[in-house]
């Protein structure tokens, strides 16, 4: 039996237990999505969008859907993450299921909802119906997700509502062979504002599969910041899709920080579906060993006067491989589009590899569109300059690595989140404790 057939069996076995199992529209969507996945299977290098990243190895790997009890590990992980921080909004999911005892929602302004997919499907399924997403959308893992997602966050902000504190979503993976399929929704009314942080944490040594989809709908002049901090176990498979749509004048920022997993693939796309939108896709990955990380981005300029900025940086050690594909589409009517894309990679070993590929499709002449990519090693002049001031070679080297990363983190506007991200990077660099407050 092939792995794909196993998933179909899982799906039939789970059907009754999935949230909203009795909703005909959802059932129909799930069935069509499953059919689509059965037909396509896991993507391989033969597909243009997967040229550098194959999921063929998932064919060989057995996964189960129902998790083993993982609550103690999750409680520890969440406590570590909260660093003694009181208050704020923390929604925790363990093995793909909401964990109310580990979660805490602070005081919210009226017109703000922070809930779950399962809860919303139980009480207000109509809110999800138009948002859930069609089975045809995205790559084949997203179809499997549409068929099997067990839960996720549901965040809704009425017109003009702003949530000041970040909304933390914590996804704790399980033991080996466990799977989590999550589907999150962030729906912002006109001029609404929020910052949502997705944390992915795994159990060291566990070969798990995370398949997550986050759908963002930003109303006119809304301002949504999304931060994703992926710190799964080095053996984990992590597949993520972030799909945003921005109405006129909306701001959307995505910060994708990818540090964990044996294989991580992020499909991040936004559609500027109104005049004067701006989008920032910012990312950093830092991997070693034989690990593989892929960011596949799409900026869809559909309307005039849109601005997009895209900055990805990779730090690759050992035999690691980093892949970046940046697709920018500028529609015939999207005049005065201003798009800039950069991909910079720092290779720390001879065997590490980086691929950067811009894909620009521009259908009008009145645009500013710039792109550039670099792959390089640590700058010897900088290294000597630091050593000539008494810093030992390791300190100098780590400082330069950290500085390379810190530039990406500097674009995270909220200071508390930026510091959290900086600490996460420092924790990954040997001697990182020496690097405090470099910037």
């Amino acid at each position, binding site marked *: 039996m092939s792995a794909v057939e196993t998933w179909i069996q899982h799906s039939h076995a789970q059907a009754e237990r999935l949230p909203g199992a009795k909703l005909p529209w959802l059932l129909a969507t799930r069935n069509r999505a499953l059919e689509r996945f059965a037909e396509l299977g896991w993507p391989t290098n033969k597909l243009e969008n997967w040229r550098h990243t194959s999921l063929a190895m998932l064919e060989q790997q057995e996964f189960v859907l129902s998790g083993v009890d993982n609550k103690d590990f999750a409680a520890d992980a969440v406590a570590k993450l909260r660093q003694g921080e009181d208050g704020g909004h923390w929604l925790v999911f363990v093995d793909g299921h909401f964990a109310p005892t580990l979660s805490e929602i602070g005081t919210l302004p009226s017109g703000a909802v922070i809930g779950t997919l399962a809860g919303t499907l139980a009480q207000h399924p109509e809110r999800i119906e138009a948002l859930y997403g069609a089975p045809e959308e995205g790559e084949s893992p997203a179809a499997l997700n549409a068929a099997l997602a067990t839960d996720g966050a549901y965040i809704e902000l009425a017109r003009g509502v702003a949530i000041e504190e970040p909304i933390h979503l914590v996804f704790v993976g399980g033991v080996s062979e466990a799977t989590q399929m999550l589907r999150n929704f962030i729906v912002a009314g006109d001029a609404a504002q929020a910052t949502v942080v997705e944390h992915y944490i795994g159990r060291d040594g566990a070969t798990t599969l995370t398949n997550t989809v986050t759908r963002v709908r930003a109303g006119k002049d809304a301002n949504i910041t999304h931060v994703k901090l992926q710190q799964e176990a080095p053996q984990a498979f992590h597949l993520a899709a972030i799909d945003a749509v921005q109405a006129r004048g909306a701001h959307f920022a995505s910060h994708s920080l990818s540090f964990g997993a044996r294989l991580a693939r992020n499909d991040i796309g936004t559609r500027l579906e109104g005049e004067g939108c701006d989008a920032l896709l910012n990312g950093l990955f830092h991997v070693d060993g034989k690990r593989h990380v892929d960011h596949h981005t799409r900026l869809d300029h559909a309307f005039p006067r849109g601005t997009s900025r895209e900055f990805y940086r990779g730090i690759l050690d050992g035999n690691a491989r980093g892949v970046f594909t940046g697709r920018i589409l500028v529609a015939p009517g999207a005049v005065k589009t201003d798009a800039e894309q950069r991909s910079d990679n720092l290779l720390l070993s001879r065997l590490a590899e980086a691929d950067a590929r811009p894909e620009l499709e521009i259908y009008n002449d009145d645009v500013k569109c710039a792109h550039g990519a670099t792959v390089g090693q640590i700058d010897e002049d900088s290294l000597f300059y630091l*050593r*000539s*001031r*008494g810093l030992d070679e390791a300190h*100098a080297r780590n400082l*330069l690595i950290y*500085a390379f990363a810190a*530039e990406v983190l500097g674009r995270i506007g909220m200071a508390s989140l930026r510091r959290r991200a900086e600490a996460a990077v420092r924790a990954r660099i040997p001697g990182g404790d020496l690097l405090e407050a470099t910037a």
Partner: protein
Amino acid sequence: MLKINNLQVSVEGRKILNGLDLEVPSGEVHAIMGPNGSGKSTLAQVLAGRDGYEVTDGSVDWDGVDLLDMPAEERARSGVFLAFQYPVEIPGVSNAYFLRSAVNAVRRHRGEKELDAMDFLKRIKSEMKTVGMAEEFLYRSVNEGFSGGEKKRNEVLQMSLLEPRLAILDETDSGLDIDALRIVADGVNRLRAPDRSMIVITHYQRLLDYIVPDRVHVLSRGRIVRSGDRSLALELEERGYGWIEEERRKAPRVEAQK
């Protein structure tokens, strides 16, 4: 006391220093002048410990230790300081962090207590005032977007913070207007001390109007071909380097004797 004896250095197989001899006693300031390509910067880089320079012969003795045997960071901690001709820009590292790391590396080596952020700020702010640098430069990335003059002031600032025993200034005057030149020169003059030697490398005599050297040496094709007092610099200013080349051609070649 710095004693350089018959120093021969190659870069990528090309010989740049050709049997250089030089002695700089403690407390003295020596100027090294010479045309482009004579090996001035190579000498500076070799003394500071840059990789990629192959020392094929000769020695550098510094108060009884073999300088060439030490890695760059150890030389720096022991009191060697190179003011770079082209200070390096390091995006993402604040000047404050950089300067504090440098100061503490040296302090650790001397067995002194490291400065915490507060003590350091007190110290650095007064030093910055003396070299005419605004406080904002602490919070900017190292040399990033600094003008030529600002970079050189930052070098002098580092020098005064690190209190070296051997300071090498590599064309610190290049690209400076007269005001910046004065500030840099003041910084150097303030640091003159009986236990400190300085080597001022320059292409032009101009800097030596402000930093009056004890000795002037002329470097040509990788060797010191002439030494004298300050009047030698003035002579070079007047006559250029051509006459020295001329004299050198007539003199017996060192290589030929070997």
